[in-house]
């Protein structure tokens, strides 16, 4: 039986080396295709697919079409390690994603060991850029702003509204949630705001009734959230039906059908969030992108779709500049990235391989979402 294993291995490795490497450039993508954050992967995939279609229609990269190898990391650190190894063993010269901070943090050393670049476009834990680039792991790049920058902007805006002194934090118990909660608490302390409670809950918790009852009673005027989108939708729904008065803030993803419905019901009234993206950002490129996503997938573009779309373009341009699909050359080319983002800024990586794209301040008044400001995160 094991002889068949060995034979099959030979056959498959011959097949794969013969069939693909000549014709396409394969790029790895690791994302939480299943599990509590699955919707994020679905959205990111939309962005990637749209960008892939456009790039290949325009003749591909270095004259070859791109191809994306997807792997499901389930937003879980150990699964992420397994599937990342799978991608690296398949010989992809660059990997996109991971999406979840815990998955990025768990796999960063693998990329360094294999000397293959990782381009992360969604994970927001501040530690990722602290560990990347100069003096750290030169193989990891991050396109999106970290939660530290967003939290500072968020707190500044809350202060400018006046009257908010007591804030509660509700976050998932992951590197994303804990990193975000720490960043927010630090920013709030800086401005003299009081954190009245911090609750960590498991990813995918079904019921928030108890936390809501507590928040109704501890004097919190605003609640800062660092949760998976689905968890936040659930929280908003339950808080709305229990009549929680505190303003919702922190990281709120407000795009897509689920959130549009909740906003319409008034579940997010008076919410304030600082977020890396909104489909409502008023640039011609973004309007156009939102239309193309709508036409292809019949839903409003979300942050993950935007991030997926731009990350593939950044990588494609790096490969083009590198002149070869070799990991080392791609890494060097990535360092020199200069990409005009659809939301207005030209994106470059700093010496921690951290890009400083714009972020968006969004408020919701009377069931209507409104982009208050688009500002640089540098």
């Amino acid at each position, binding site marked *: 039986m094991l002889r068949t294993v060995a034979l099959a291995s030979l056959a498959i490795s011959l097949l794969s080396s013969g069939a693909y490497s000549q014709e396409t450039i394969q790029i790895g993508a690791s994302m939480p295709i*299943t599990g509590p954050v699955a919707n994020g992967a679905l959205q990111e995939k939309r962005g990637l697919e749209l960008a892939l279609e456009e790039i290949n229609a325009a003749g591909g990269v270095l004259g070859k079409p791109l191809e994306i190898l997807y792997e499901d990391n389930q937003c879980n650190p*150990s699964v992420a390690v397994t599937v990342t*190894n799978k991608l690296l063993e398949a010989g992809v010269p660059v990997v996109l994603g991971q999406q979840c901070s815990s998955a990025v943090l*768990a796999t960063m050393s693998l990329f360094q060991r294999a000397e293959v670049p990782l381009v992360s476009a969604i994970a927001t834990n501040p530690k990722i850029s602290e560990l990347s680039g100069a003096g750290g792991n030169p193989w990891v790049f991050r396109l999106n702003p970290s939660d530290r920058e967003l939290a500072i902007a968020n707190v500044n805006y809350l202060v400018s509204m006046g009257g908010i002194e007591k804030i509660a934090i509700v976050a998932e118990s992951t590197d994303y949630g804990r990193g975000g909660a720490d960043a927010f608490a630090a920013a709030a302390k800086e401005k003299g705001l009081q954190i009245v409670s911090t609750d960590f809950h498991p990813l995918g918790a079904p019921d928030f009734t108890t936390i809501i009852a507590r928040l109704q009673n501890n004097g919190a005027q605003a609640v800062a959230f660092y949760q998976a989108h689905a968890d936040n939708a659930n929280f908003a729904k339950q808080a709305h039906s229990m009549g929680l008065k505190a303003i919702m803030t922190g990281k709120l993803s407000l795009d897509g059908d689920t959130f549009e419905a909740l906003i319409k019901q008034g579940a997010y009234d008076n919410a304030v969030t600082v977020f890396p993206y909104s489909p409502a950002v008023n640039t011609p490129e973004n309007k156009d992108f939102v239309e193309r996503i709508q036409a292809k997938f019949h839903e409003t573009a979300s942050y993950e779709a935007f991030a997926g779309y731009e990350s593939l373009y950044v990588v494609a341009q790096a490969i083009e500049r590198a002149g070869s699909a070799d990991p080392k050359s791609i890494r060097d080319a990535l360092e020199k990235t200069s990409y005009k983002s659809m939301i207005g800024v030209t994106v470059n990586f700093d010496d921690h391989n951290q890009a400083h794209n714009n972020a968006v301040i969004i408020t919701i008044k009377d069931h209507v979402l409104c982009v208050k400001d688009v500002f640089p995160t540098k």
Partner: protein
Amino acid sequence: MAALLLAIFIAVPFLTQSPYFLTIGISAMIFTVFAMSLNIVYGYAGLLSLAQVGFWGVGSYVAALVVTRLDGSIWEGMLAAAAVSAAGGILIGAVALRLSNHAFVIVSLCFTLLMQMLAQEWIDLTNGPMGIPGLPAPGIGFGETSFVFATPTHFFYLTLAFATISLGVIWLIVTSRIGRTFRMIKHDETLSCSLGVRVTVWKLFAIALASVFAALSGALYVFYVTIVDPLIFDVYYTQVILVIVIIGGLGSFWPVVVSGLLITVLPEILRTPNELRMISYGVILVLAVLLMPTGIAGLVNKVRMRRPMSNANAAESST
């Protein structure tokens, strides 16, 4: 049988250097030892235990913590893992065996869940859902020279050595008087009692033995994947080892080894998508319980029974 399997496994890295196939081989061997640990307590001693995954997880965490927090070597980590798990097993067993065998099943399940909850919530110790990433590759040092099992091929041979020694030890035990005592207790507890067998002590011994091998295989596994997180307690592992043991045949040795290798290797070769693979495990489990609860071992015995009694010692070696 043993020599043949060993020879084939030694040959594998000469035939393929593909990390993918070596990984399949490594996990096949680890899971076979892990499944055999369930076979000791369930197949031989008759105690259906859902705590094996608990011990496998505890073993992984203990080994990972010894290495990352106490700067120990992986070998010290594995030693500690085995010791902690054996102690834990005896404790659980002592509590649960005061009750019925039904309660033992539930208690063993609860032990696993409790351990998973600790791994998730005791952030200071276990780093919670974020897990402990970046576990170093195991190494051996002899004075000046040291050797690190860094490549998949090295790890393959390390695992092969581990599996050979573990299965060898288990084989010696289950074919000895101890194994026969386990089976007698499983078969008729009351009779064993009246023959002066100290049933509870033997049961505790089976539980401890099983927990040691579960812990060792778990520890080795996380050092191969280089990370441990609360998912190590996933019910998925319970399902896999249950399927392996039942397909092999409860209380049989070689058939369980064969089924362990089959069940872990086949889905990889067939590249079955995750959910379909799980569904097929479920279907296999249901069908096996309904149609062939004695597993491969039962089939083999049936075939032997039809033939004249020419091969009596072969039947002995298959158990």
